[in-house]
């Protein structure tokens, strides 16, 4: 590695050294409690998948360039220089971690491995060694934000095509647009994904609840967060923030996309609107009696998306919904806080078939958990998790049906 690149990477590393990060880097006592907490390690017990091992890959570089012992006597201080081989280790560590933070729940010091991996991802970006597809996806999102007027007409045509499918499931009053867009002063801006499955059931439930809503021109998913680029993450989020401010909405509702929910909730800053997940909105409709539902037959279990549950605190709402719409609900884990990650987060699902083999090998414990629930239907509230659960279902021959929570709720609606 050239000295100029190494100097640049050390500079990038330095930008991540907040007080919280220093605590993460300087506190580990190597107790090992995190080791079996990682789904990858639990499925494939190799030392490199232990959270403390992953963190150590970053920590040794920290020691080399940011501690006195590492700078002057690196041999004594367990320090490691930034080299091409070190970059490969960073890549292996960062992209075998889904950022689920299950290890953090077990760590007596609350060391955040996901946050430490954000250093690894930033160094990979600096060395132009980040996964190309994730960088491209982030750039596409940013491009849409810069040229929305160019793309707007096409989007509106696509949305128009869906309206008959929405009305077929829930009739709206004459003169009401089934999928409203560009509604200034709407109460809620709904930010979906590109697919119809992310728009139709949500629109059906909004209309049933007589929500004053409008659909965003942008997709919710934040590929900047997947690739670990703080600048791109903010640019992608800012498109939605600007749209919400322009329309003057009171609430921004993020679709069933875990990373999108976490990023929008945690990085939007102080705004005149609040950010909520679709699951929270649906639970509120039921609580306030704004929609009526029936109970659906069959046994159902719920997979907590890590970014919405462990990283976002939304545990009770999906259970409140399922308690109202299914006859037989079975928990996967006695305490949802310890629910296993599906193994698809952190950008792994978005990297497609390139990561499929690792994703399947590292999700054996999740497959076991689903099998042991003995439920017929696995419900979740995240696009990434849904894709990964479908892959797990096929790979391990579980014979389950995988459904989105919002879709299930739309199926359970009854007329007032």
């Amino acid at each position, binding site marked *: 590695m050239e000295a100029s690149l190494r100097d640049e990477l050390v500079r990038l590393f330095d930008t991540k050294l907040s007080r919280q990060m220093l605590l993460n880097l300087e506190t580990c006592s190597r107790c090992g409690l995190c080791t079996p907490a990682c789904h990858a390690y639990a499925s494939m017990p190799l030392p490199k998948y232990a959270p403390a091992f992953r963190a150590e890959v970053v920590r040794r570089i920290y020691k080399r360039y940011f501690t006195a012992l590492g700078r002057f006597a690196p041999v004594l201080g367990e320090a490691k220089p930034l080299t091409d081989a070190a970059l490969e280790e960073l890549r292996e560590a960062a992209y075998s971690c889904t950022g689920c933070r299950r290890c953090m729940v077990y760590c007596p010091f609350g060391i955040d491995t996901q946050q430490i991996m954000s250093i690894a991802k930033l160094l990979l970006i600096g060395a132009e060694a980040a996964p190309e*597809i994730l960088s*491209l*996806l982030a*750039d*596409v*999102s940013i*491009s*849409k934000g810069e*040229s929305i007027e*160019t*793309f*707007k007409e*096409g*989007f509106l*045509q*696509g*949305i128009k*095509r*869906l309206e008959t499918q929405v009305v077929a499931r829930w009739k709206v009053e004459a003169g009401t647009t089934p999928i409203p867009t560009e509604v200034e002063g709407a109460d809620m801006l709904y930010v*979906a*994904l*590109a*697919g*119809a*499955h*992310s*728009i139709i059931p949500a629109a059906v439930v909004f209309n049933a609840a007589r929500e004053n809503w409008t659909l965003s*021109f942008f*997709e919710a*998913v934040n*590929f900047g967060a997947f690739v670990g680029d703080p600048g791109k993450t903010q640019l992608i989020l800012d498109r939605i923030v600007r749209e919400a401010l322009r329309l003057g909405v009171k609430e921004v509702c993020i679709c069933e*996309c875990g990373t999108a929910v976490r990023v929008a909730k945690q990085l939007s800053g102080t705004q005149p609107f609040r950010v909520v997940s679709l699951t929270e909105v649906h639970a509120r409709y039921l609580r306030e009696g704004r929609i009526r539902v029936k109970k659906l037959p069959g046994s159902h279990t719920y997979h907590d998306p890590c970014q919405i549950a462990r990283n976002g605190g939304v545990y009770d709402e999906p259970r409140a919904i399922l308690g109202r719409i299914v006859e037989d609900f079975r928990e996967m884990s006695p305490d949802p806080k310890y629910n296993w990650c599906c193994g698809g987060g952190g950008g792994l699902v*978005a*990297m*497609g078939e390139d990561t499929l083999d690792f994703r399947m090998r590292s999700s054996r414990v999740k497959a076991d958990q689903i099998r042991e629930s003995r439920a017929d239907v696995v419900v979740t509230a995240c*696009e990434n998790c*849904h*894709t990964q659960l479908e892959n797990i279902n096929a790979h391990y021959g579980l014979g389950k049906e995988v459904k989105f929570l919002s879709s299930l709720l739309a199926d359970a609606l009854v007329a007032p």
Partner: protein
Amino acid sequence: MSAMEYAKELDLRNLPCPMPVVKISKGIKEVAVGQIVKAVTTDPGALTDFPAWAKTSGNQIVETQEASGEVRFFIKRLK
């Protein structure tokens, strides 16, 4: 509707996010520069995603057809 010639066809219907863009990014590299890929999708968001992807990746959408709830993009590999 014109019968445009293409070197490869990708069925991207009803795929989860972000697979349509992931698969076209991979698929375009499997044809020679100057050749055309036909991509069929049902995503309403594809009508914004694909033009933005073409602009970002330096490829060209030479024709877009809409029929029966599907959108067909004909994309020329430029580099």
